[in-house]
Structures are given as C-alpha cells and as structure tokens.
C-alpha cells in the first residue's frame, strides 16, 4: 500500500508542476487500493483517494475555488421494507414496499456541505446525496409511500452503511484533493464504484471514476465455498467438531 501511496504522491507532484493548453479541466483520480481482502481479523478499512484537477490554457491566477464530491457505491440488491401495524392487540408486519438496485453501501463525501456546493436542481440531475442515490421505483403492488423510502435511508444510516460526510474531502493544494473512505467491518462483499465530481461556481466541470473490490482472502473464501458447495460434508464436519469439543470438555472436567 505504501509503495502505491508514494507513486500516487509523485504523480500528484508531477501534475502540480504542469500547466498550459486548452481551456478545459480534466480530472485524474487514484485510489490507495483496488482490492480489499477480508481476513479473520478484518474490522473495517480506510481507503484514501487522490484527485488532481488538471487545468489547461487558464491563466495562473484565474482559478475559481474547486469543490469535490466523492460518491462510493457498494454492490446493489433488492430490499424489502416492512412496516408494523396494529392488528387487534398485536403489532404485525402488515405493509411492505420493495425497492430494487439499492446499494449495499453508500458514502457521499465532500469538502463542504452539499447544499453549498451545488443548487438543488444540479444535485437532483447529477444524483448527488443519499436521497438522490436511492431509486424511487417500487416493484410490487402498493401506492408510493415516501415513509418507506425514508425509513430505508434512516435504517441504513443507523447501520453505518449509508453516510454523508461533508468533511471527508480535503484540498491539499488548490487543484489537488484527498478523500478518505472508511469501510465498516460489515461492508458487503463485491464490486464498489467510486464516482468523483469536481465543481466550480456551482457547476460540474470534471468527472472521473474508479472502482475497487471487497473480497474474502483465499482461506476465508475456501471455507465459504466448501459451506456453499459441499453443504452435507460441511455439516458433518461441523457435527464431528461439536462431538469432539463436547467429548474433550467431558474429559477435561471429569472428576473420578
């Protein structure tokens, strides 16, 4: 990881030094790691992302202040949101809505509050923020009820799987920024995409993306694969282990 960081830093330095050309901004992003391996001691991971805004053909002093929004999305899946309602003396799950393509992890990070970076309509168009990232579609029957969608976001935020952080992006030079992405220990496995947008004066001027993958290490994956593909043997192995542990304990504790 450190080798990669150094390489990134060198790249950053090289790019700060360059200037000149046509009047357009390009964005280059680099992630500290593109493969996160989960071992038995995995409790979460911090990724860092560097972004460099390369300006061409602009006078040196005419730079507007930049803003950056980094959106990290985990693998998507369908989610059912259920609501308990009173039924006689009981409270039962009587109402539900289904949502498709809900990211299992969602972090929207920026250098200041999203509302001060861009107007509501721009944010709506570019789908910036948790609310804009959660799709509206409802697959099954049932009228559109915004409370279910709100509850979905509220619950995911409480679980630490959805978050908005207006302080997670830091500009280390006028055209270079760094962002931290903290993955929780419960981070779902799969492919994550990172969408980086740069704004100036409330308008998006450059966009870039990258991705990374969260996977189990060979040992962890082997165990999971055996459990999935050879269930009977896995169950028998576990049973024998249970008998063994039980027998061992009875030998250890025997007082005859």
């Amino acid at each position, binding site marked *: 990881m450190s080798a990669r960081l150094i390489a990134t830093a060198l790249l950053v330095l090289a790019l700060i030094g360059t200037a000149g050309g046509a009047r357009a901004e390009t964005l280059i992003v680099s992630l500290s790691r593109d493969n996160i391996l989960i071992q038995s001691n*995995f409790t979460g991971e911090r990724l860092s992302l560097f972004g460099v805004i390369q300006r061409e053909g602009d006078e040196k002093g005419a730079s507007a202040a930049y803003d950056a929004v980094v959106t990290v999305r985990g693998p998507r899946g369908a989610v059912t949101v259920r609501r308990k309602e009173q039924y006689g003396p009981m409270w039962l799950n009587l109402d539900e809505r289904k949502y498709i393509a809900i990211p299992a992890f969602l972090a929207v990070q920026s250098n200041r509050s999203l509302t001060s970076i861009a107007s509501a309509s721009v944010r709506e168009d570019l789908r910036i923020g948790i609310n804009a990232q959660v799709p509206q579609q409802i697959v099954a029957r049932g009228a559109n009820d915004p409370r279910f969608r709100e509850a979905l976001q509220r619950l995911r935020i409480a679980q630490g799987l959805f978050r908005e952080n207006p302080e997670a992006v830091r500009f280390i030079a006028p055209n270079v920024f760094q962002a931290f992405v903290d993955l929780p220990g419960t981070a779902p496995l799969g492919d994550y995409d990172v969408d980086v947008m740069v704004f100036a004066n409330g308008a998006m001027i450059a966009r870039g993306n990258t991705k990374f993958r969260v996977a189990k290490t060979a040992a962890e994956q082997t165990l999971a694969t055996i*459990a999935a593909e050879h269930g009977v043997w896995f*169950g028998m192995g576990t049973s024998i*282990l*249970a008998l063994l542990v039980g027998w061992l*304990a009875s030998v250890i504790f025997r007082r005859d």
Partner: protein
Amino acid sequence: MQIYLPIAEMPVDVFLILGMGVAVGFISGMFGVGGGFLLTPLLIFVGIPPAVAVATQGPQIAASSTTGALSYWRRKSIDFKLGGVLLVGGFIGTILGVLFFNQMRRIGQLETVITLSYVVLLGSVGTLVSWESLAAVIKAGKVPPRRRTAGRHNWYEGLPFKLRFHRSGLYISVIPIVFIAILIGFAGAVLGIGGGFILVPALIYIFRVPAQVVVGTSLFQILFTMLGATVLHAATNHSVDLFLALLLMVGGVFGAQFGARAGAQIRGDYFRVLLGLLILSVAIRFAGDVFTQPKEPFSTTLTETVR
C-alpha cells in the same frame, strides 16, 4: 477482540460470543434443555443474520449436550430405549415441520408465526411448570409431587404397543411418547429449537419419568436432533458459520459443566420453579415484541444481492 465470521460476513467480539456460549451452556447443563430458545434470539439481537443464528446454534447445542449426555451416561441415567423412541417421533416431526416452515415462508407470514408460536408455546409451558412447582414448594413436600403408584394409570398409558422401559421404570404404550416427540420435532424445525424445554416437563408430568433419568434422556435426544439439524441446515441453506459455532461451543461446554454442578445442588421443586420462570420470561419478551407499539415500526430485508 474482533473476529470476522466467514459465513455471516461480519465481525463480532470474540468475548461477547464466548460469554453468550457460557451463559446458555450453564442453563443447558443445569436444566437439561438445549438452550436454543435463548441462544437464537440472543444471536439475532447482536446482529447475526437470523438464518445464520438458527443454523449455527445447532452445533453449539450438540457440543454442550454431548458433554452433558456423557456425564449422565457414566451415572447410568440415560434411558436409551426411551430416547430411541423419542428420536423416531422427532424425526417424523422434523420433516413435517420443515414442510410447514417452507409453506409459511411462501405465504410471507413466517416471522409472525414464529413469534406467536414462541409466545403461545413458551407461555403455556412456562406457566404450567411454574404454577405446578410453586404449588409444590408452598405445600413444602406434604404432598409428594405426583409419585407413580401401582395400579393407577392414565388412559393414554394403556394404549396398544406397550413397551417396557427399564431405566425409567415404565411400562406404557409408545403411541403417546411418539406423539409428543412428533410435536417437539415439528416445533423444533419451525422455531429452530431443540425442544428440551417441552420434553423435560412432558416426561416429568405426562409420563412421570424419574427426574434423574429425564435430564440425561432429554440431552441424548437433543444431541441427535441437533446433529441432524446441523447437517440439514448446512446442506440446504449453507448458513452454518463454523467460526461462530466454534466460539459458542467452547463457551458452551464450560458453561454446561458449571450448570450441571449447580443443577445437582438444587432441590427438585425449586429446580422446576426456576425452569418455569426462565421459560416464562422468554415468552414475555416475545410477547412484548408483538403486543407493544414498536419504537421503529420499519424493518428491512435484503431479498437479493448482485455481486
């Protein structure tokens, strides 16, 4: 200290899980119940996915009942013949239970069925046991608790297919025993429990099996039921977590040792009062879930993931 569970796909605190294993093992060893009715809700409470919780409590209960059953075996207080008959019934019940489970899941009311069953089953068994044993404690042994007397039999004991169970000192029909075992197997498959908390009172009150034999025989039956359940769960829904099971087992076998010693020092009447109150308190907790207004009425379920 945290460890990542490969099947549950989340990190857990090692000492928290070990502690839960010890606590449930203690109760298991003390009362001869598996403790599944305590462990499953506990695991779900700390955030383990319900499917993994139900499947993984199997090996933990198997391990602690192995220890328990072995020590009762040495004291010759397991009725293998009775245990065998119970296993046959339990097997039939388990198959019926799995069919019912899948049917309820199709209708979409599984959670409600499970919660209500817990309330009804634990509530009625807990009330019966506490009531009867409290009455016995209050009478302070003036009337010995329903000892078997020669020539007095309940109608169900005289049904056909009579068998002699030497260890338990019984000569009764196998029909009511198999019937009870089917019920327990059924409940076990639907609720993810071993059924010891139904079996122990049933053997004591309905069949009047001597208390020493009851616990050993119950542990024997639970052991084999749970081994079967582990293999079935691992084969069908692949949600037995080996790491989680190992932690629970290690905690559980230690707890079971202390539980068994504590249990041996308690008078029979008090023993049953405690068991009754324990079952009743779990029933009340589940009733609270259903009968009080929830703080957060919404819940989410991941129905499918694209990887």
